[in-house]
């Protein structure tokens, strides 16, 4: 697709723009003996410019009204900031309500408490809102990873994808290994621009077999991606991973996953949602890293050129006024040029 007009029929007005070639009686001055007039080169030039400006002004206006533009075009953008792939657990366990901090017993299905999904959704939404320069991507996972929003500056779409996780129940299962590998893959082949982060949001551990662990380890190193785990304690038996030693009833899966991530050669951070300073720490951490600008193209439905033509018409009108300012328009209202030059 290329250059086109949204209202091409308006171009039928173009022949009208030749009107200035017809001289108007009211633009002429009667003079009894033309042969007496001295040769007025500047005057002739002004007359020529006058007609050219008039034609150009009207033609620009007509073309502008026909709405010229470029359909299916691309616009260059310069991105700054980090690249963050959000990988959100979409399993049904996220529909459960959150257990309050420091409570090791009590009902998991207390309806007065917010669901885990809501807690992380709000946290992530604030996080995205506070990082206007970063590019975000969004993936959800359950049995399969779903690549929903590829890296973009357009945070409205990331927010819309986050909000979509609020609707409907969760899906079965949490296969984090496959999802992590898919998230790391999103960085492959992209220009390296500084900090790259996979932000995985999950309430539970997952058993990663050794082969998967190795692929995650090498993948993160190859693409130079840091891993941030936003961990939501899911049951009274979920370990507090911020503590050095777990309780004796703690589920071991989360602990094992945390231990594996801690051995990565690439940066790894753990954020627990019941830590009130969690978001500030995470933001500060990303800010510490340096980023290079990255240029890329965004498709737009249409690039509009009306403005350029209206500007051209405006400039031509200014030209017309300038021409007029140096021309004699009537004998009576202006002092005679000839009278003065004779003096």
């Amino acid at each position, binding site marked *: 697709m290329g250059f086109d007009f949204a209202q091409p029929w308006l171009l039928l007005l173009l022949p009208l723009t030749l009107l200035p070639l017809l001289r108007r009686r009211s633009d002429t*001055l*009667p003079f009894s003996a033309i042969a007496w007039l001295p040769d007025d080169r*500047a005057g002739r030039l002004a007359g020529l410019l006058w007609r050219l400006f008039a034609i150009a002004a009207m033609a620009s206006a007509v073309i*502008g009204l026909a709405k010229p533009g470029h359909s299916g075009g691309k616009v260059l953008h310069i991105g700054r900031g980090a690249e963050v792939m959000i990988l959100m657990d979409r399993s049904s366990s996220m529909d459960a309500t959150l257990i309050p901090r420091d409570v090791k017993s009590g009902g998991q299905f207390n309806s007065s408490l917010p669901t885990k999904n809501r807690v992380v959704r709000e946290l992530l939404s604030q996080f995205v809102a506070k990082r206007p320069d970063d590019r975000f991507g969004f993936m959800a996972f359950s049995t399969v990873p779903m690549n929903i929003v590829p890296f973009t500056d357009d945070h409205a779409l990331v927010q819309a994808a986050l909000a979509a996780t609020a609707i409907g129940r969760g899906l079965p299962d949490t296969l984090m290994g496959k999802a992590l590998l898919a998230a790391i893959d999103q960085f492959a082949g992209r220009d390296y621009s500084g900090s790259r982060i996979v932000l995985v949001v999950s309430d539970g551990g997952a058993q990663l077999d050794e082969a998967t662990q190795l692929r995650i380890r090498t993948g993160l190193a190859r693409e130079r991606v840091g891993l941030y785990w936003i961990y939501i304690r899911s049951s009274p038996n979920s370990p507090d991973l911020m503590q050095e030693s777990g309780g004796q009833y703690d589920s071991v899966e989360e602990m094992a996953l945390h231990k594996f991530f801690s051995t990565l050669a690439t940066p790894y951070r753990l954020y627990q949602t019941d830590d009130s300073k969690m978001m500030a720490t995470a933001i500060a951490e990303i800010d510490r890293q340096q980023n290079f600008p990255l240029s890329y193209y965004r498709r737009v*439905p249409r690039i509009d050129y009306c403005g350029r033509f*209206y500007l051209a018409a405006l400039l031509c*009108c200014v030209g017309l006024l300038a021409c007029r300012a140096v021309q004699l328009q009537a004998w009576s209202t202006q002092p005679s040029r000839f009278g003065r030059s004779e003096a």
Partner: protein
Amino acid sequence: MRWQLPLHVHGIGRSDWSIAAATLFFAVALWLPPVALQRPTVSYLVTFDVTQSMDVEDVFRAGKPQPISRLAAARAAMRDLLPQLPCGSRLGWAIFADYRSLPLVLPVEVCSHYDELLASLERIDGGMRWANASNVGKGATWAVRTARAVGETTRVIFFTDGHESPPLRTNESPPLDDITSGEVGGWLIGVGGDMPQRIPKTTRDGLPIGYWTADEVVQRTDLPPGQSREHLSNLREDHLKKVARQVGFGYRRLTTSHTLAEAMLDPTLAQSRPTATDMRWAPAALALALLLWRFAPALPRRTSVKRKLTTSKNAAVR
């Protein structure tokens, strides 16, 4: 001799007020930001069936000799349609598998998020299906529930081939207790060919491993043995029309993107909402009219021949 400018500035005469006004109007046209006007817009949660029967390649597009898969055809139709929607309209994506729809992206404005909507649309594929079953009828009711949860004005587009797997029992219909027919408007869009085709089989990782065979799928029990051919798939229009009636949707078969545009822009499904509208044409048109008026030759007046002759003898100074 006194040095003198060859030109004298005479000032702008009274006959040039129209040019001055046109200049002003062009300046207004350049400056004028979009104005919020009430205009008809649409808001859809577009749901794609991503079950395996949608991988059957039996949809021919105009001018292309090779058929493409049903899902690819649905995506392509949506991609072609996107620039045709009036600005201010909103689109979101959802997928259907198993028995339910899952929203991926809630509706966002189409013109300002054009690239992002296209980029996320391109990623909707069979790899996203979390289960292999395909209860299309139930899926339609879920599409209604999902759109209802998104917001009152959200309508539904549901691209599907109507292939139920496992097959429905005689007179089985989806539970509709919490849904009144037509509470959420929308369309079921049928995608696929009329000839039953083999269904490509893929692994969980998306690798093709041949086709589903007769003994691998649940066959119908209401037919004599050997007559049920549920491992083959075609567009089941009768079934989709029935489902559409039950939930209060319209039904259209996907032929060209024009049919889809017609369905989606149906005035009964549109809402009037304030939309940023480019109004620069108005001052620009005024300016043009002023210029045309200024340069139009004077209409011939009823003057005597004698006067005409005198005037034509007088040469133009300009």
